[in-house]
């Protein structure tokens, strides 16, 4: 055990080497610890930054720096951030927007280009999204991204935007003498300004003096800025009186929460220190702000935020993929030297065990952070299926075939989950149609265990088919028995899961079955396995045709798991399927070709055996 822990530590240290701070800005890594309410859960600012940066840059690092550096520049010095070329856009969009070809674009460039297409974009918003062409969808998505970017940049505009006041007005408002003032400074003197308006409104235009003109000018600027008051994307101010809702800085001002203005004052000081690049003061103020934010919160929140930051940083899923690739390479190495074979076998098993521990850690961390079963989104169910398959390889004895299969399936699953999902903030809370934790846990988990075991047994039978094809004097061995065992196991969980879904639906909707696409998918899996097992018991299927039947289970799982989402109807439609369509079709075709060709060759070669 201690060896495994030691190995884990070494991998952790190697993987966790910090980036060298190449920027001239101060070290702002602690800003990550600020909690934010976003997309239904409280997460660290780090996750928010990574997720939003990934949307526009398709990368999660900003000039070899963490994306928190990008976010801080955007909220503290928006005008500087607007000029940074960070937007990565599609080639077609470059043509549509008449832009010069280059890799990255700045916000200003895109904003101007999109402004010229305002009419076209407004029309697109009125149309049904699913009826739009690919380029239209991309244009619309870019517009949404730009608006989102603008919203984030204006989150602290009550601090960033500066007003020029003349001496007279400064004296009139009793402000401290300095050249520029922010909205927050003037807000304190709101009453003086309002009183002045009352006086000015009674006067004739010709009688208004210079000071009053200045007051009107400032009020005009204030009202222009107040358009940004609707901005509530950056909910970083904790709730008052133990309520659940968090507030954005503008919401605090809009709703006159005077008690919470203190948070904004800290943010103002932070902005100042950020601009001055004063590391010492920055750290002091940030620590005070963090302490204030967590003051009335449970310690649990602090731990959660901290763990999520670590989870984001070490990106364990990528690490898992690399180790699986390494194990696969070691397993496929061929040497005749007994000494090397022994060493390689030991390394292989150690690494496999380490990966299983990392997998457990990932699943447990996600449960701890979301407080939900680890199967609430399609992404999570993918990871959970990978985990189930790893566990099955242990139940099925750790041997060469199981390790190879476990590695191949997991690499595939991790590749899909990393490529097609937002792999930075993939801890999402799905608004479950039925938000009941108990039923969600047992129904979805049993269905997912069913999926996992079906995929594993199907891959095992793929291998078995290859074995039959290769060996002339083939005899049905342990692999065949294992396929049977795991298939029965898969049927058990798929069936129980489907029934539990029915009970859940009965309790909530008053009906067991609604012929929803996902329900039909689950039924399809059950019927296919039942068909195979009954065919075997009744001797209507011989061993080889039984194995071929199990091979097809992969395609059925793909249809039931992902395929039904293409229909875009029903209560179970969720997850990421936009970019997956082609890959699923390719996988199905390749799998079909594999099964059909091998079956045909086996049939031709061993006609007698095939038929007995």
């Amino acid at each position, binding site marked *: 055990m201690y060896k495994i822990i030691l190995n884990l530590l070494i991998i952790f240290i190697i993987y966790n080497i910090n980036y060298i701070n190449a920027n001239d800005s101060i070290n702002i890594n602690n800003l990550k610890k600020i909690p934010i309410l976003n997309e239904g859960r409280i997460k660290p600012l780090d996750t928010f930054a990574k997720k939003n940066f990934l949307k526009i840059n398709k990368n999660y690092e900003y000039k070899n720096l963490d994306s928190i550096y990008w976010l801080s520049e955007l909220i503290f010095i928006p005008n500087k951030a607007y000029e940074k070329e960070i937007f990565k856009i599609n080639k077609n969009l470059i043509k549509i927007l008449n832009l010069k070809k280059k890799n990255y674009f700045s916000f200003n460039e895109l904003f101007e280009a999109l402004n010229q297409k305002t009419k076209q974009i407004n029309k697109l918003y009125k149309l049904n999204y699913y009826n739009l062409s690919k380029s239209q969808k991309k244009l619309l998505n870019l517009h949404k991204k730009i608006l989102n970017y603008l919203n984030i940049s204006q989150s602290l505009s009550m601090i960033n935007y500066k007003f020029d006041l003349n001496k007279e007005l400064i004296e009139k408002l009793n402000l401290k003498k300095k050249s520029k003032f922010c909205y927050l400074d003037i807000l304190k003197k709101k009453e003086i300004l309002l009183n002045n308006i009352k006086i000015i409104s009674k006067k004739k235009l010709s009688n208004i003096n210079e000071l009053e003109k200045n007051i009107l000018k400032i009020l005009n600027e204030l009202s222009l800025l107040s358009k940004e008051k609707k901005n509530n994307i950056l909910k970083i101010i904790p709730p008052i009186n133990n309520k659940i809702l968090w507030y954005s800085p503008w919401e605090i001002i809009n709703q006159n929460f005077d008690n919470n203005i203190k948070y904004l004052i800290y943010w103002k000081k932070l902005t100042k220190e950020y601009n001055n690049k004063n590391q010492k003061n920055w750290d002091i103020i940030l620590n005070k702000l963090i302490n204030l934010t967590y003051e009335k919160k449970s310690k649990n929140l602090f731990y959660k935020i901290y763990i999520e930051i670590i989870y984001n940083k070490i990106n364990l899923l990528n690490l898992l993929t690399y180790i699986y690739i390494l194990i696969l390479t070691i397993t496929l190495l061929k040497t005749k030297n007994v000494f090397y074979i022994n060493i390689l076998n030991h390394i292989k098993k150690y690494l496999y065990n380490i990966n299983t521990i990392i997998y457990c850690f990932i699943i447990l961390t996600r449960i701890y952070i979301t407080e939900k079963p680890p199967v609430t989104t399609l992404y999570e169910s993918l990871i959970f299926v990978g985990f189930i398959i790893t566990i099955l390889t242990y139940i099925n004895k750790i041997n060469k075939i199981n390790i190879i299969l476990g590695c191949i399936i997991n690499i595939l699953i991790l590749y899909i989950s990393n490529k097609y999902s937002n792999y930075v903030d993939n801890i999402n809370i799905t608004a479950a*149609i*039925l*938000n*009941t934790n108990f039923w969600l846990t047992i129904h979805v988990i049993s269905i997912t265990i069913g999926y996992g075991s079906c995929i594993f047994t199907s891959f095992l039978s793929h291998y078995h088919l290859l074995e039959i094809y290769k060996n002339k004097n083939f005899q*049905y061995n342990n692999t*065949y*028995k294992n396929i*049977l065992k795991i298939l*029965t*196991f898969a*049927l*058990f969980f798929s*069936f*129980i899961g489907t*029934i539990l879904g*029915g*009970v859940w639906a*009965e309790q*909530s*909707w*008053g*009906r*067991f079955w609604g012929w929803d696409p996902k329900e039909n998918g689950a039924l399809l899996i059950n019927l296919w396995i039942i068909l195979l*097992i009954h065919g*075997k*018991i009744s001797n209507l299927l011989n*061993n080889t045709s039984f194995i071929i039947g199990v091979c097809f289970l992969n395609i059925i799982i793909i249809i039931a798991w992902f395929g039904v989402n293409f229909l875009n109807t029903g209560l179970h439609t969720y997850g990421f399927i936009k970019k997956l369509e082609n890959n699923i079709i390719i996988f199905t075709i390749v799998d079909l070709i594999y099964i059909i060709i091998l079956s045909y060759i086996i049939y031709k070669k061993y006609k007698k055996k095939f038929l007995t």
Partner: protein
Amino acid sequence: MNKPIKYKKYIFYQTAFIEKENKNATILTITKNNISFIFYISSILICIGLIINLTKKDKKNYV
């Protein structure tokens, strides 16, 4: 959605909703099921069968 109304033997639950400016609507589905016990009985029977199948050591019939 999460809180269906049970009235006599009928169950009212929300299946969809329409959200437009100033006009919101909810779509309810009403169901009545007198024979739900059959579902439970059949499910239990299949589960027993599955457990027997899963725990049976002798799989001579299969091979």
